Structure formats: structure tokens, C-alpha cells
């Protein structure tokens, strides 16, 4: 993205995760290592007439750790998960970030696909069935897409720009890409970047099922790249990285937890939902990220694929990975077989997982991948984890409805 050769890596000095089976980065590693799909039957609403009946809940999230009872009552779950993960990313580096980064303001970039739609759905039903006077006066602020960014700014007390970006399932990866850009251009020296989503509602699950992107399985669905894959399971969650300029870390003696080495973005400009069949957009984002990091494909230790387990999406991504990495046998994993699809939160959570996998030199297996699709033709990590040289960067993809493609290179 810089266009002038590799840029300096951007330091990661804080991490925060709220996801199925994970209320911390350490939980995330443990959960992915187990490779057990966390899908459970949906019980919050009627699913009799829905094609999809499973979801993956952020089942370790503890609202009382972050919010008072009135706050938890008012804030939509998507925003709670997002703010919680954001606060954890700030808190990992220090309980008081201002003490650790004196003289700094913290820019905030939050990615979300549909944000407060669950609350909108609830209030629309109240309006329909009980009338206008029963609507909550907080309906408007609680459905604003920028609510999480505003809440985070209030809670961390930062007066720098707090921005919201929406790119469907690539939203939080776009947020990280924008955060990296802000640091590289000197716009900011400290950026909290990531995003989250919670869309396990009757309308949204029914609507996604109508796109044919969700699994219809009532038992455990087959995972990404499986011969019998039939779509994703809706998950929920959020992930954040606290990014800092390398010079700032050096000046203050802050030891980074990881690095973002490169970012690449592209758009398919092909179809509002379907990926370009040959994966040309994905090739562009991966190639751009490699160039941005100053790496060739042999410098990558593993790929964390977007791979949602849709027949067409996995196939297009596989073609793209094959094109970029050619004869270099690159281990490929995907986290959605375990976590489900976190929509706007998927990119950042997977980027954090990929960063930790790269550091440990252990790639977790793809959950519920039983019979690899022979048409995929990749070195898929399944059944058991794969050991790779520790410290080799990972390439992490996030793609989205709308044709948005983001590739991040992390270590």
C-alpha cells in the first residue's frame, strides 16, 4: 500500500479478544488448538422455519467485568463485545495507558458490518406491536454504527479521532489496515484498531440463510475446505490490537507483543455477494500485502484463510492462494470451523490468532475438516496442529460481501 517498498513494521502493544470459547488471546489459542467446533443450537428465538439452527456464542464473555448493570441493559451485545475487547487491548499494555504513553492521544478505528441491527430489530417489533410510546429513547444512539467507537473514546478518555468503518465481513481488518496507515503516515502514534459483531438474531440469521451462505446442518457442520461443506455458522465476537509507532516504542522502552508487517486491500468489482470465481481480488490483496511487507511468498510461514466453508468462496480463495504461493507449499488453516463466522469481528480475531500462531510456530487445525475437497489443492492443516518455524510471518485474509478483500501480514 505504500508503493515505495517495504515500510517499517507497526508494533502491536495490546491485544483484546471476545469470541466463542475465548475471553482473552490466551483463551483463543487454547480454543483453536482444541479444534472443536463451538456451534450449539440456537435457543434465543424460534428457528423452526429457518434453514439454519446453530450459532457460536461468545460464551466466555462476562458483562460485569466491563459494564454496570444499567450499561449492560442499554448497550447492544455487539457493542458490549466490541468495547470489552477494545478495553482489554488497552489494558493488556497497561492499566493506565496514559501512564505508559504520556503525551499521546489514542486514535480509535472500529470496524463493524451491521452494528446495532439487533437493537433496531427489537425496537421495530416494539413499535409494531405496542406503539410509538413504548420505544426506548435510546434507540437512535444504540443503533448508530459509531456507538462502539464513541463508547471506547469515552471509556479510554482519548480525544483523537474515533472512526468507524464498515466493510461487511472484512470490517475489522480494514480497521487494522487504516490504523497501520495512520501510524505510518504520522497521523497518529497510537491507534486502537479492530472491530466486532453480534448478529445472532432471528431476522439476520434468516436473512443470511436466504443468501445460501450459511450451513443448513443440524448436526455439526463440515468445516472450511471440506468436500461436504455447505456454508458457515453464525458466530459473534470482537478483536482489537493496540498499534504503536516503532519509534514511540523504542523511545519509551515498550516491548511489542507482535507486529503488523504488511497490509493489502483490493475490491473484486464483480458481484455484491459472490467472489470473483478465480479469486483475482484475493490475489491482488495478498500480493499487495506481500509487497507492502517486502516479503516474497517463501517468507510466509502459514496462511490464515478467510474460508467460511461456502462451496464457492473457499474454492475462489484456494485458487487465489495457489496463484500467489505457486509451488511453495504453504500450510493453510482457517478459524471458522471452530469459531463460526464473526462477521465484522472475523478479520481482527483471526489476525490476532494468526499472529500468536506465527510466534509459537504452531498452526491450529481447521475445525470439522474431515474430507478435504480434492479440488482445493492446498496444504491444509487438519486433524492435528502443524509445527512451523517460530517467528515466520503469517498472512491473514478477510473477504466480504461487496467484494472487499484485506490481507494482513502479522508476526
Amino acid at each position, binding site marked *: 500500500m505504500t508503493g515505495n517498498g517495504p515500510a517499517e513494521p507497526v508494533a502491536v502493544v495490546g491485544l483484546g479478544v471476545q469470541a466463542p470459547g475465548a475471553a482473552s488471546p490466551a483463551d483463543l489459542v487454547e480454543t483453536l488448538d482444541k479444534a472443536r467446533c463451538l456451534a450449539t443450537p440456537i435457543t434465543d428465538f424460534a428457528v423452526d422455519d429457518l434453514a439454519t439452527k446453530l450459532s457460536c456464542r461468545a460464551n466466555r464473555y462476562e458483562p460485569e467485568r466491563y459494564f454496570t*448493570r*444499567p450499561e449492560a*441493559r*442499554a448497550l447492544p451485545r455487539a457493542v458490549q463485545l466490541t468495547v470489552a475487547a477494545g478495553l482489554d487491548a488497552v489494558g493488556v499494555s497497561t492499566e493506565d495507558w496514559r501512564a505508559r504513553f504520556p503525551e499521546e492521544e489514542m486514535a480509535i478505528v472500529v470496524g463493524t458490518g451491521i452494528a446495532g441491527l439487533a437493537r433496531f430489530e427489537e425496537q421495530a417489533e416494539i413499535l409494531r406491536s405496542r406503539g410509538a*410510546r413504548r420505544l*426506548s*429513547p*435510546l434507540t437512535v444512539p444504540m443503533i448508530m454504527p459509531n456507538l462502539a467507537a464513541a463508547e471506547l473514546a469515552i471509556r479510554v478518555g482519548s480525544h483523537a479521532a474515533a472512526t468507524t468503518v464498515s466493510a461487511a465481513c472484512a470490517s475489522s481488518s480494514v480497521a487494522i489496515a487504516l490504523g497501520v496507515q495512520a501510524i505510518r503516515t504520522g497521523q497518529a502514534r497510537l491507534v486502537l484498531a479492530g472491530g466486532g459483531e453480534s448478529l445472532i438474531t432471528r431476522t439476520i440469521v434468516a436473512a443470511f440463510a436466504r443468501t445460501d451462505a450459511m450451513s443448513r446442518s443440524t448436526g455439526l457442520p463440515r468445516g472450511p475446505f471440506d468436500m461436504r461443506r455447505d456454508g458457515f455458522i453464525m458466530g459473534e465476537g470482537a478483536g482489537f490490537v493496540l498499534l504503536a509507532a516503532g519509534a514511540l516504542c523504542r523511545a519509551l522502552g515498550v516491548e511489542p507483543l507482535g507486529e503488523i508487517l504488511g497490509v493489502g486491500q483490493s475490491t473484486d468489482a464483480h458481484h455484491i455477494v459472490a467472489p470473483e470465481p478465480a479469486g483475482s481480488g484475493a490475489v491482488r490483496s495478498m500480493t499487495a500485502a506481500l509487497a507492502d511487507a517486502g516479503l516474497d511468498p517463501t517468507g510466509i510461514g502459514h496462511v490464515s484463510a478467510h474460508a467460511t466453508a461456502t462451496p464457492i468462496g473457499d474454492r475462489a480463495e484456494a485458487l487465489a492462494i495457489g496463484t500467489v504461493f505457486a509451488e511453495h507449499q504453504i500450510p493453510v488453516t482457517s478459524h471458522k470451523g471452530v469459531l463460526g463466522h464473526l462477521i465484522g469481528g472475523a478479520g481482527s480475531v483471526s489476525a490476532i490468532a494468526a499472529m500468536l500462531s506465527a510466534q509459537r510456530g504452531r498452526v491450529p487445525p481447521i475445525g470439522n475438516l474431515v474430507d478435504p475437497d480434492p479440488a482445493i489443492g492446498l496444504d491444509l492443516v487438519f486433524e492435528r496442529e502443524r509445527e512451523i518455524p517460530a517467528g515466520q510471518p503469517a498472512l491473514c485474509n478477510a473477504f466480504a460481501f461487496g467484494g472487499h478483500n484485506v490481507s494482513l501480514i502479522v508476526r
Partner: protein
Amino acid sequence: MTKDEMLAVIKEAIDEVVDDVPVDLGPDSGLGTSGIDSLSLVEIVLVMEERLGIGTGPDDFDDVRTVGDAVDVFVGLVDAQEAAEAVS
């Protein structure tokens, strides 16, 4: 429902909606000084409507300045509803 009983119900509703409710919240507590702004008051009224099974009108709370004022309004609304049910 007595005023004391209503005060207990409304304190619970306030506690559900508002952070840092003063521990000595009582009938003489001003809404503004108790952290109850106009949006919070609407939320509290929604919670009270649920709890009491009553409806409220758009002007019912125009003159409410204290917690005690709100107690009086809700006691009046409950009494009116019970009277209406007795007639029907």
C-alpha cells in the same frame, strides 16, 4: 399500592437504568441531582409500565421534579387503572 411500596418499586427501576444512584435516594431526592436525565426518566417510565402493567400519557410526568413526585404519579395511575377495572 401504598406510597412506600411504590417507592420501593421505583427505586428498583431507577437502579436498573441509572449508574451510581445515591444510596440515600428518597421521596425528596431531585431527579437531576440523582443522575436521572430526561432520557433516563423515559427509560424508567418504560420499566415501570412493564412492572405495574399500566400505560402512561405524554403529559403525566411534565411536573415531576422529585422521586416523590414520580411516586405520586404512579400511585395515581395504578389507582385509576384499578378503578377502571372495577367498573368494567
